[in-house]
Structure formats: C-alpha cells, structure tokens
C-alpha cells in the first residue's frame, strides 16, 4: 500500500495527467514574417 505522502503525490500527478504538456509547449513559436504581404486567393493555403 502507498504511504500517505505517496498518495498525495499520486493525486497531484493524476491531476497533472489530465492536462499534459504537449511537445509544442517546448518549441519556439514560429513567427512568420511575410516579405511582401498580399491578399492571396482564399483557395490558396492560408497557413
């Protein structure tokens, strides 16, 4: 059986398990600077 201290740790870990970090949380945001911004046709890829 888990000791009291480990039960508390488990509760905290279990709570954290439901909002896990995603790999992108550790990546820089890719800021993309257009060189010559234009309004491209909507059917072209926009991102």
């Amino acid at each position, binding site marked *: 059986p*888990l*000791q009291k201290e*480990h039960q*508390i*740790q*488990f*509760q*905290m*870990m*279990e*709570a*954290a*398990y439901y*909002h*896990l*970090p995603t790999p992108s*949380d*550790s990546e*820089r*945001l890719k*800021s993309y*600077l257009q060189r010559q911004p234009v309004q491209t046709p909507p059917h072209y890829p926009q991102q």
Partner: protein
Amino acid sequence: IEDPPGFAERVEYLLKDWITIFHTPSNSKDMIKAFGGFVNKMNVYGILKGDEPLTRFFRHATQCCIDLTYRNMNDPSWKTKIFQWIDAYVRLIALLVKHSGEGGSTSTKLNLLNKVLGIVVGILMHDQEVHGTAFQQMGYHRIFIMLFLELSAHDPVLENISLSVITAFCHTYHILRPSLAPGFCYSWLELISHRVFIGRILASIPQQKGWSMYSQLLIHLFKYLAPFLRNAELAKPVQHLYKGTLRVLLVLLHDFPEFLCDYHFGFCDVIPPNCIQMRNLILSAYPRNMRLPDPFTPNLKVDMLTDIGGSPRIFTNYAAAITPSSFKKDLDSYLKARSPVTFLSELRSNLQISNEPGSRYNIPLMNALVLYVGTQAIAHIRSKNLGPTMATIVHSAHMDIFQNLAVDLDNEGRYLFLNAIANQLRYPNSHTHYFSCAILYLFVEANSEAIQEQITRVLLERLIVNRPHPWGLLITFIELIKNPAYKFWDHDFVHCAPEIEKLFESVANSCM
C-alpha cells in the same frame, strides 16, 4: 515588506510595454536597440535602483504571466497568446542576464539568473500549495524551457557561462524534483529530457562535467516512480510517466551508453527490483568502442576476451554507502584476516531493517556490500597476478561472505542479494567476469535447492522480459544451462510448469 504603492501597476505597465515592443516586427530586426530603450524606461521607473525593486519586478512579472495562464487555460487558441506573452518576458530576462554586469564578469549575470529561477520556483511551489490538484504546469514549463533555449543560443557571451547556466537549471530542477512538485512531474520530465538540454549537459559541456548532475536528476525520477512501480498494475498516470522515462533511457542508451555505464550502480539502487526491463535497459549499456562477442557463440572463451579484464568506471561512492562505520570496520577486518568470525553470523542483522515482508532489507546497503566485497575480491585475485575464474574466486574471505549470505538469508533477503550480484552482469569487464563466476559457484556449491532455484529465478526473470538483455546475463545463463557440471536440467524447479520448461528450452535452443 509590502510593495511601494502602485508598484504592481507599474510592473504590469512595463511588462505590457515590453511585450508590445517585442512583438513589433520592425523591432525584431534590431532587438538590442529596442531593449536598450526599454532598460532606460525600467531605470526611470526605479526598477534597476537595486536588488530589492528588481526582485519585486520579477516576482510581479512572473505572477502576471502565471495569472494570465490560469485565466485563459481552457481556450486552446489562447495558448499561442499566452506563449507570445511569456516568450517576450523570457526574452527580457535573457537580455538582462546577458547584458548585466561588465562584459567579462559573469557573476552578475549568474546571480541574476539564479535570482529569477529562484523566484519562479518560489511562485510555482506556492501555487502548487494554493491550487492543489488544480495546479497548472504550463506557464512554468514555458518559462523554464524558453529561458533555457534563450540562454543556450550560439553566442560568445552565453558560451562563456554555459556550464554555470546548466548548473543553475540543474539546481532548479533538483529543487523542483517530482517528489516535491508532483503536479509538475510531466513538465519536469519534458524539461530534463529536452533535446537541447540533453545535448548541452551530456554532449557540449566539456569533460562530461554535466554527467553527475544529470545522473542526480534521473535518480530523483526513479525515486519518485519507485513506490508507484512496486505494484504490478500501473495506474494510467504512472504508466505515462514510466513510458516517458523508458523513451529517455532509450535515447541515453543509444547516444550516451557510457553515461549509463558509469552511473548504473546509483540507478539500480533506486529502481525497484520488479522493474526488470528498465533495469535491463540500463545494464545493457556498453562503451561504443567495444564490440560484444555473440553470447551464443559455441565454446565462447569469456576469460580470453580482450576487454574482460577491464575495470569498469563506477561514479558512485558505494564504499561510503556501507554503514555504520563499525560494520565497515568489521567488514574490512574480516576481508583482511577472516576475523572476527562472528562477523558472518551478524551479517544478516546488519542488513535487515524491518520485519515488514517486502521491505525487510536495506537494499542500497546490500548492493554496496556485494559490489564492495566483489571489487575487493578482484583486487585480491589480481594481487596474485591472476584473473577471476571458478578456481581463483573460491576459498577466500570474500566468498565466505557471499556463501554465508546465500545460506543465512531468508527468501526475500537472498533474492535481493542475488539481484545485487546480477546487477553486475553487464558488458565484458572484470566485474561481470567475477560476479558471473560467483553466482555460478554459489549455484554449484549450494547446500539447498532453494538457493539454486532462486539463482535461476533471478536470472530467468531478467531474460523473459522484452529486450534489451545485458551481455553478462546471457553468457552466465547460457553457461548454467549448457555446462553439465551444474546439472541444471536435473532440478525439479526446471520442470515445475510447461511455460517454465518451454522458456528454458527456447533459451537452450538459441544456444545450440
């Protein structure tokens, strides 16, 4: 002491001002100029007038970032906004660290970095207490990883303080170890295993100066996992962290096997005995410049291998783990002169710490004792210009101790004792050689079948798990089942169930 009136508002204004500056495209080309202007503004607001206002500034600014995270946690689109806010704040910290103090002097920079890290840690620990299971790790995760990436950029000023930066972050992650910040444990594993962090601490820092710090972080992780891994069934949150740990160990096994070789002893001290595959993974590491002969090679002459005489590096002070000092003194005295004879009969009581089944023994002491006696034995054999063989390891004080432990301990104690020996069956080196001979000698000289059964159990349970399997384990088991001197197949426990018999035969067939 309370903040001066209006201080928090001033901090929030400055923070928002900086974030606007940071995200203005025209500034992105020449951030240093923009930063210089902002520092002047900080000065005008009295932030840089001394240690205290600066500390208050970082505490409030960090708290602003964290509050923003909590306010917008559930809106996924807000994640980018939160990160834009935090990344700007982190850039400010990094620029302040990099440009503080005179160009060459590093202490000002590092004091500032440690101050900021300490403030973030303090807020995190307090937040974890306040929010409990509603604690959110994301904001802190972002601050730590982005600050580390900023301070790991290729830059002459930062290169000059890279070891101190890594040390500061290791110290931070040591304070935030999972047993103290369990709500942060998943982020913590992400942070210590981030590719840039691993690259810096294990590869870039010269003379492997980061290895010891990193081994401490992994030991924190194993210690945290241990109570949850003792049960056969893993709860989902535990399984997730365990699986993440396996991935990290696989990367280390593949890229830094020497690191696992050097620190295996400390790791195996804290990994629960039933965590067989994870332990095998660590014990399977071998130096990259070594070629392992196929264990199934017919008539493999282990004592003829070039590497078999090498002494493996062990960066754990296992001798110091043999306590109390009176016990160590008696041990050394017995090893030297086989006296006091009472030493053997008192061995078990020194190793037993409770009568609670499943935790009767001091495992680290058992592991240290076995390794210490074994290394003393190897040195003793070497002093006669011999190497460990079935002939040279017998009739010695060292083997007295091992045989006494095999006979005198109960099933649990003997299982742990044999595990301590099996943990030394790794790649070709003098420890593997000695302990392989030792466990086989204990098998052939056993005065009860229970000893032989438990030796078989300890070896077999390490072989039936998925790969990898340590080389030393394989050659020992192959010798046991192939060499008729051990009469292995005559024992009832070999035929106690069809599955067991099939397992032995499959290993035996692989050998043939």
